[in-house]
Structure formats: structure tokens, C-alpha cells
């Protein structure tokens, strides 16, 4: 394509082809936007349980997120899947539990648990799974229609509300959030 080896444009192209490094914190900003907006309510539920039952490796790859001391960034999504009738409300009790995914970014954490009304506020019942070394934890649980209070427990001692979910009134001096699952 170029006239000769020392062609200036060729040298320019070779320079332009050099790999670049974007800020790894961009990953977190992308996930924050994804989870704090509409969530992924447009995906159908049908395949989710089948997928959950299949054994699969956990893809862990170095995201290279910069670790900032002390600060824990909480960003979470709950995914409300549509009911089989496509979102029409049904009498309570007529529809069963819906799988809801909780995702939180907690950089530097060694453990994160999802704790709420749905598991009797038992701090050991629903540990979350680290899905990447960038500190993104997630878990999917079935929730019955209704309003559920919850919070994340980081490293067994620090309570974290979900920044992307409505806050629950604070009765105990620690933050909590609310998720509503339609019937």
C-alpha cells in the first residue's frame, strides 16, 4: 500500500497501531451506568434458571481496576424479570418467586453478603460471588412479589446500602435499601 519502507504515512500507521491503555476505572463507570438505569428488565426469565443450574467456570480476569484505599464504591442493580404475562399485574400469590440479580462493586472486599427480609437477615445465608478481580460481586435469588428491605454486608462488618436503589428508612443507624418485585 505504501510507496517505500520509509514512507512517512507508513511510519505514522505503525505508531498509530501501538496498543493504548485506557483508564481501567472506565469499567466501573460503565457498569455503574448499566446498573443504575433501567436494569436489564427487558430480558426474559425463561433461560435464567436453566443457566443457573448448569455448572460453569467463573470467568475471572484481571480488570486492572485501580485500588483506592478505604473507599468502597457501591453500585448495584436488581433485575426484575417480567412475569410470563409480560408485566401485567396479577393477584398476589398467583405468581411465584422471580429471580432477581443483585450486583455490587466493592473493591478490596474479601467477602460480601446479601442480607435482607428475604433471608431473615441471616448474614451467612446468601454470600455473593466475586465475578471479577475488579471487585464486582453478584448473586441471583428468587424473590416473591412485594417490597423487600436489604443491604450488603462487606467483610462481615460494614453495612452498605445499594446506591442505585431507593433507600429504606433507617431504623438502626445503618443504611438499607428497598427492592419491589411486582406480582
Amino acid at each position: 500500500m505504501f510507496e517505500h519502507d520509509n514512507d512517512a504515512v507508513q511510519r505514522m500507521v505503525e505508531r498509530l497501531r501501538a496498543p493504548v491503555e485506557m483508564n481501567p476505572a472506565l469499567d466501573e463507570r460503565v457498569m455503574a451506568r448499566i446498573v443504575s438505569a433501567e436494569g436489564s428488565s427487558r430480558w426474559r426469565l425463561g433461560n435464567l434458571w436453566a443457566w443457573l443450574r448448569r455448572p460453569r467456570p467463573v470467568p475471572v480476569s484481571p480488570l486492572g481496576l485501580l485500588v483506592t484505599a478505604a473507599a468502597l464504591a457501591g453500585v448495584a442493580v436488581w433485575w426484575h424479570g417480567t412475569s410470563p404475562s409480560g408485566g401485567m399485574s396479577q393477584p398476589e400469590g398467583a405468581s411465584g418467586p422471580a429471580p432477581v440479580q443483585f450486583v455490587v462493586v466493592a473493591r478490596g472486599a474479601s467477602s460480601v453478603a446479601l442480607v435482607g427480609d428475604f433471608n431473615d437477615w441471616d448474614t451467612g445465608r446468601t454470600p455473593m460471588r466475586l465475578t471479577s478481580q475488579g471487585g464486582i460481586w453478584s448473586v441471583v435469588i428468587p424473590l416473591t412479589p412485594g417490597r423487600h428491605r436489604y443491604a450488603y454486608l462487606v467483610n462481615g462488618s460494614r453495612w452498605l446500602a445499594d446506591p442505585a436503589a431507593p433507600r429504606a428508612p433507617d431504623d438502626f443507624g445503618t443504611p438499607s435499601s428497598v427492592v419491589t418485585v411486582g406480582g
Partner: protein
Amino acid sequence: MSDEGIARRVRSGDTAAFAELVARYRDRLGRYALHMLGNREDAEEALQDSFVRAYRSLARWNDTAPFGPWLFAILVNRCRTTGRRTARRDRIFVRDDVTLSTAPAPEAPDHAEWDDTIRRALDRLAPASREAFLLKHVEELEYDDMARLTGVGVSALKMRVKRACDELRSFLTEVEHV
């Protein structure tokens, strides 16, 4: 797991898995965005927007086709809507050691100056020419793929690439002889 496997998993409801795709494509797509838009801030914004759009429109991805090119097309379109802000200039090239080892010129120019020259050269191109030039010579796409991605015919793309090369050569020659 393959990119397509992860994308299918995200589509089934595993939102968290999308982070893996972001990590895999961040730098690859970032290179195009940086050179097309000329500064890191705009590039990061375009990159973020593209990933978010990809997530939200994942239902439209044909899962028999590779995920990467589909994602790249979203970025290319997104970059078209961002005007290149020539006032904002950053150091785009971080890995000087890599380019030092590949520079063929007998006398390697000062890299900061060379990088600045490259940026000015790209700035001079019309956006359509710059896009075609980057897709062909930096991203090394085939013309058929470029046509599918841009919606522009192959012969028009070839003309844009040739025009871009001529303009760049002219400018770079002029600069080097100053």
C-alpha cells in the same frame, strides 16, 4: 469463555458478566476512539456510551455472528456523533517502549514531537476520511467489512482512504522539511 458465550450469558440475565466484556474490549476499542476523536476525555466518553448502548441493545446482536465487530460498529457510529475538539490535546501514546522498537526510520524523531505531528495530521483530515483511514490502516479491516460497518460503498471508501493517505503524506513531508 468466548466473547460470544459471555454475551449470551449477559443476555440470559447475568448483568455482572458484562464487566468481563468491557475489560476485554476496553483497550482495543479505546485505540480507535482515541485516534478518531483526538483526546482521552472524548474517547472515554464515547467508549462508555458504546458499551452501555451495546448492553442495552444486546437483544439485537445476532449470536451466530462474532460479538467484537458488532460492538466495534457501535463505537464507530458513536464516534461520528462526537466532534473532534482540537483544543483538547493529551498524551495519547503511553507505551513509548513499544513504538521505539517498531520505528523504522533511521533517525527516530523525538516521540513527543512525532506524536504531536501525528495528531495534527489526523486533525487535518475530514472526519469521513479519517474514519476510513483508521479503519483500513490502523484497525486493518477489509474493505467489505468497512462497507458493512459504515454503510458506505467499497469504491467510495477506497477513494477516502487514498485521499487521506495523499493528504497525510503531503502534510508529513512538509513538516519534516521545515
